[in-house]
């Protein structure tokens, strides 16, 4: 097992280095020269040269890359062209918001998705099955940002039951702590603030969870159908165990294996959806920030953010794989991917 873990960790390193090269090339080589973008086309040649010097852009490209990588390894991702703030600080300030949103979204997606999937499988080919399959299909077919706006119109604009954007009432905002407001407010025993944070997160998390929920529902259903057909489940039924017991104790437990993998992988893909959801709900996280910075060509920020997300993504996938291996002894550690 340990050997496998080490092997996977070693495999992740070239991937991340590769990603840093791709992002670096995209931002520094294929993009337009940032000097006129930031200083303007009327800037003098000297001013642009001075600016490039200040940002190390006159160095040979390989040196720039090494500097970037070396900085990144030390946790220094450079500074924003526009605000001159440290990219690491800016990203870290927004990171908890995105984590919180993704965690709540994946919880919703898993709870609802597994329930729907199990019901659909147990009641195969009935109306329940049909409805949950249609729902999950619509879930993967709707643009997440459209859904988000529809939710805002309904719950904030018409029904006035939930807030339309933001993370928490600014005056209730907990200072310090984990940065996850739901946890921080609970830790301080501030129920009012907790409820307020919860009310703010419901709509964006629901919108964000929709796609993953659909995937989880479908995966649960098909996995449940597979296990329900397995011999041991039939045997259990034949032995006269109640259908419910068989479903929950025997089939569900085994069906969860592939489902848990999917949940893990979805947690990573939520980061992609978060960019759109955060933009729609004015959620002050990394996704919204990346979009803003891309729109104004603030390349150091984009570069740093993509790398950060890559690290998270790879880490999540690694953990998911390891859990999978740990849960299912049938899988050999040398298992090839794909």
């Amino acid at each position: 097992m340990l050997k496998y873990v080490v092997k996977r960790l070693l495999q992740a390193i070239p991937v991340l280095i590769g990603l840093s090269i791709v992002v670096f090339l995209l931002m520094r080589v294929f993009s337009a020269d940032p000097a006129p973008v930031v200083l303007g086309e009327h800037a003098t040649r000297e001013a642009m040269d001075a600016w490039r010097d200040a940002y190390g852009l006159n160095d040979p490209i390989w040196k720039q890359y090494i500097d970037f990588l070396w900085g990144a390894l030390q946790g220094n991702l450079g500074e924003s062209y526009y605000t001159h703030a440290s990219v690491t600080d800016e990203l870290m300030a927004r990171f908890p918001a995105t984590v919180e949103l993704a965690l709540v979204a994946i919880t919703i997606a898993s709870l609802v998705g597994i329930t729907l999937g199990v019901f659909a499988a147990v009641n195969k080919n009935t109306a329940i099955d049909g409805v949950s399959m249609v729902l999950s299909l619509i879930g993967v077919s709707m643009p997440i940002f459209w859904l988000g706006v529809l939710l805002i119109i309904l719950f904030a604009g018409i029904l006035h039951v939930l807030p339309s954007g933001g993370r928490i009432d600014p005056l209730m905002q907990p200072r310090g702590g984990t940065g996850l407001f739901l946890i921080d407010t609970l830790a301080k025993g501030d129920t009012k603030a907790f409820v307020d944070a919860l009310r703010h997160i419901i709509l964006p998390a629901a919108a964000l969870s929709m796609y993953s929920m659909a995937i989880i529902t479908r995966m649960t259903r098909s996995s449940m159908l597979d296990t329900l057909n397995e011999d041991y489940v039939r045997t259990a039924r034949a032995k006269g165990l109640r259908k419910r017991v068989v479903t929950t104790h025997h089939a569900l437990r085994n069906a969860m294996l592939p489902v848990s993998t999917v949940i893990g992988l979805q947690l990573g893909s939520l980061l992609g959806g978060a960019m759109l959801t955060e933009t729609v709900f004015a959620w002050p996280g990394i996704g919204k920030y990346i979009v803003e910075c891309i729109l104004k060509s603030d390349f150091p920020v984009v570069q740093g953010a993509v790398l950060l997300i890559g690290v998270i993504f790879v880490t999540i996938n690694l953990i998911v794989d390891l859990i999978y291996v740990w849960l299912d002894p049938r899988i050999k550690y040398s298992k090839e991917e794909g």
Partner: protein
Amino acid sequence: MESIKAQISRRNFIKAMGIASAASIFALAGCTTEPEKKEPEPKEDTQPTENEPETEPAIAETITFAQGAEPRGLDPAYVDDGESAQVMVQIYENLLQYDDESCNVVPGLCDIPEISDDGLTYTFKVKEGIKFHDGTDFNAEAAKAHIERQLEPNRTEDMAYASFTWGSEETGDGIESIEAPDATTLIIKLRAASTAFLANVAMCMASPIVAPSAFDSAMEKPVGTGQYKFVSWTKSDNIILERNEDYWNPEKAGKSKNIVFRFIAEAAPRVTALTNGEVDIINGIDEAVVNTVTDGGCKLFQMAGMNINYMAFNTTSENFKDVAARKAVAKAINVPELVSSLYGEYAEYANSVMPLWMAPYCKDIKQTEFDPEAAKKELADLGIKELKCITYTNPRPYNGKGGQALAEAIQGYLSEVGVDLKIDSYDWTTYRTKVETEAYDMCFYGWNGDNGDPDNFMNLFADPNVSMNVARFSDDDYKALIRKGLQTPAGEERDEIYRQCEEYVAERQVWLPISHSVNLLGYRPEVSGFNFHPTAVTFLYNCVKTV
């Protein structure tokens, strides 16, 4: 008729809220006319005057104000945007200030100064016993330091308002020297007499007094003498202020304990936040959401704006060096139609740079007539097939629809005359740097008056700073006219100078003036006491929300 009625109801409204006196005093420097303020017909509510209970109703601790963009910063020496001003006016105070409803200058941290007969020496009496939020003393020395850092040679490139407010050697105007012989006396000597100087001292840019202890940090952590103290700024989300309990003037002390500013870029979500009770007052409303505000049980405040929404031709670009090309493009665009369909009844067609209520002498100024046939021919003759413009995405006080919608409408008109318009759009903060740097043919911009003086508008064509003068218009005759205007005392002669200025830029088609928009605020029915000023900032010290 309607306007008179509306003004009266506005007065009642103010009286009920306990603002000093309802009868406003006209004349003095600056505005001679008051903008028209009105509230829409109240649906079912009664004027708050009538049913005011005897006991004070409980008031909420916090007033939340939502605006479309984040301030660029909070040091008045460096910023130039309305979003910053909106926050700064709660924190800082000026030596002089405007009265509540117009741009008439009244005492602030100083009394009205004595002016020497030649109009060059101003002697200010600084009030005593006032402290900045950080406990340091406000005195003549502090005021001097604040102004001095904006004068040459201390002045830096990024002090957007400095040359306009305090003048420069090159143009031979503004402050020549500033002295503080003792703690309560401030003596300012000007290079040339200026009718607008007092109004400039009361302006919400450049002039508000920053504590010298905070000169290096006020962009992020402002320190002033005003009714509210800065608490925190969560980037791209909110700014929190709290009441200054040691405020010097009990008559104008802050009523609510906290003021929170939130930044919500799009109009529709901002309105949703209002009707949903998440925020108490919002600005930047346009015609598309007016009904949503009122249908959502909230109220609308409106007042004719002291602003201009325009498209500037880059007079230094290859395509538009020549006035004929600028005129040809102007002929292609049906501005009245554009204004009425884009802004409905909440903006009026601009025949001149200054709104007519502010400068009635501009009523005969004419802009280029819409004539697509001629435009098509002239543009073809000039060989103009493709143009490039830059624009902003956020709604602005003078353009509730945002620059993107406006640019695309212009694109539509130009495509009818065979010209392709390429549009590059940026968020407002980025856009501000882009207008200084990008090589565009046209750009979209606007101006909200800061002091009610015509020079404040017309100087935009003479300003050496390209972020003000986005048309990059440079004309010595025009600059001479502007200088003359500044030195002429208010009156018919001065009006005539500014009428000539208007004519001068209209003939040369430096801009395509588009509209003067009505300022709109949406607010919750429980909220009262805010004071919307013609300079498009809302003072919140008197604002309360009943619970």
